[in-house]
């Protein structure tokens, strides 16, 4: 760990962290503020949604949700937060080391008296710090939203906490997978398309697995590993899937160290 790199990374990313977390926080507060209206019209809503094509309901997980309950509605809204945070985490993962090469600052950093391992560790810790800061702000907004707009209905606080905590491994997946992909390709010219691709790709896989029913695509997407609707209905994580997700993270990180330490940093051409 190198404090100079860590501080620099945190400071460079601070603006992005604030924009993402305040954006997601505002989204959660706004969407969840509709809950009292939904809860009042629950019977009407159910009738309307019964007329949706079943594939569409499945794609949004509506078949498993009861939008008239606090956590049912919350887990529906939570999907948007997951999608945004997936893009953010993938963004940090893809950009973690590739940004130094695409912006041609790698020569500067790597000729300093630090080892590649130290550089990667410092950068990873700074990225984790950025994600943790995001989570704190998003959690605060979610808890505030639920306590402000619960329409007097009861909910299981432990399940809500579990759902919020599941964001951490969820983000780690996108950070680590983004990082390893950025090291496997020759050069990442622009981070955003990769990040959007990974996050939306994972989301679409999860949505499609709902439509096709028995296709087991959910095994590879964290939107299924940490499926909000499933967590709410069972009150627990799907342990095998959550463990599989963490195994992917550990493998991706180990492989990233291996690749980064051996990587040739090519001259500007």
């Amino acid at each position, binding site marked *: 760990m190198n404090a*100079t790199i860590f501080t620099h990374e945190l400071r460079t990313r601070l603006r992005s962290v604030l924009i993402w977390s305040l954006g997601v926080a505002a989204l959660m507060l706004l969407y969840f503020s509709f809950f009292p209206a939904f809860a009042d019209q629950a019977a009407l809503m159910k009738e309307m949604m019964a007329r949706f094509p079943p594939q569409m309901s499945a794609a949004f997980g509506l078949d498993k949700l009861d939008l008239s309950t606090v956590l049912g509605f919350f887990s529906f809204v939570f999907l948007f937060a997951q999608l945004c945070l997936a893009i953010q985490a993938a963004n940090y993962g893809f950009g973690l080391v590739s940004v130094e090469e695409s912006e041609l600052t790698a020569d500067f950093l790597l000729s300093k008296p630090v080892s590649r391992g130290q550089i990667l560790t410092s950068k990873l810790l700074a990225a984790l710090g950025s994600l943790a800061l995001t989570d704190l702000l998003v959690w605060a907004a979610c808890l505030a939203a639920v306590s402000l707009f619960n329409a007097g209905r009861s909910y299981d606080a432990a399940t809500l906490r579990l759902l919020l905590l599941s964001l951490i491994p969820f983000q780690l997946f996108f950070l680590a997978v983004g990082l390893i992909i950025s090291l496997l390709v020759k050069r990442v010219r622009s981070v955003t398309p990769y990040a959007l691709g990974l996050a939306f790709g994972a989301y679409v896989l999860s949505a499609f697995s709902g439509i096709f029913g028995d296709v087991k695509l959910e095994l590879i997407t964290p939107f299924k590993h940490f499926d909000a609707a499933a967590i709410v209905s069972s009150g627990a994580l799907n342990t095998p899937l959550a463990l599989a997700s963490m195994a992917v993270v550990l493998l991706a990180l180990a492989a990233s160290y291996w690749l980064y330490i051996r990587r040739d940093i090519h001259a500007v051409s």
Partner: protein
Amino acid sequence: MSVIQVRNLTKYYGKARGIVDVSFDVAEGEIFGFIGPNGAGKSTTIRLLLSLIHPSSGSMTLFGQDVAAHGPAIRRQIGYLPSEVYYYEGMKVRELLQYSAGFYPGDWRQRTAELADYMELDMGRRISDLSYGNKKKVGIVQGLLHSPRLLFLDEPTSGLDPLMQRKFFDLIRRENARGVTVFFSSHILGEVQRLCTRVGIIREGRMVEVSNIRTLQENNYKKIRLSAEGLSAATFDLPGVTNLQSDNGVLSFFFRGDINAVLRRLSELPINDVVIEEPTLEEIFMHYYE
């Protein structure tokens, strides 16, 4: 003591040649010139020594320590000025230099300020607003601010105006006088001749010669082109003349030796036009190694 020791160093990028079987030594306190045309392998060699890229085979030691095993410790003593300077665009010059200094134990603020002042660099400006020459100055200050014992300069003068070039050379000479070893890569023979004590010449990835600058100067070619009335190739059948070509009354050749012999011969001719110039490095290579 050898500050740089390179033995049979080879680097292939996949199948593409980087450098092949390069060996040389640089002694402490030397200014070692490293010349060759673009693409010959100069940057590859420097990038290998800095562990930016990894060798296919061969060995390198800096300060007597293996580069692969002791990279971070070795790099504490090294200053590096890349040929193309790019820095974090959102930062101010001062922030970038502080970031750079943060990697080296000690307080480098005074030295940084002195260097920036000497190079006429305004530390309050944003890096994205700087011209190429000014970015180069940031690179120079950044490479020197931690008082390294070994300097790698990769084509350092491109982008600097002649006045700044001179200041920069003075700065390098001053650092050298304090005992700093300098590894100076360039494709401009003239600046290497001005500064260096010894040179290595690299061509197509191979070190073709390592010699004293004086030896190279004695072999100094001039390229002469003239047009005159009644000119024939035989007029310049002198010792030291090579590659004599006559084309439409214009005579061109390379000359090595006492230039006065050519001048005396020229003064006897009704000259229309004459050009005497330094051959390009390419031309030297072509004739030096015939």
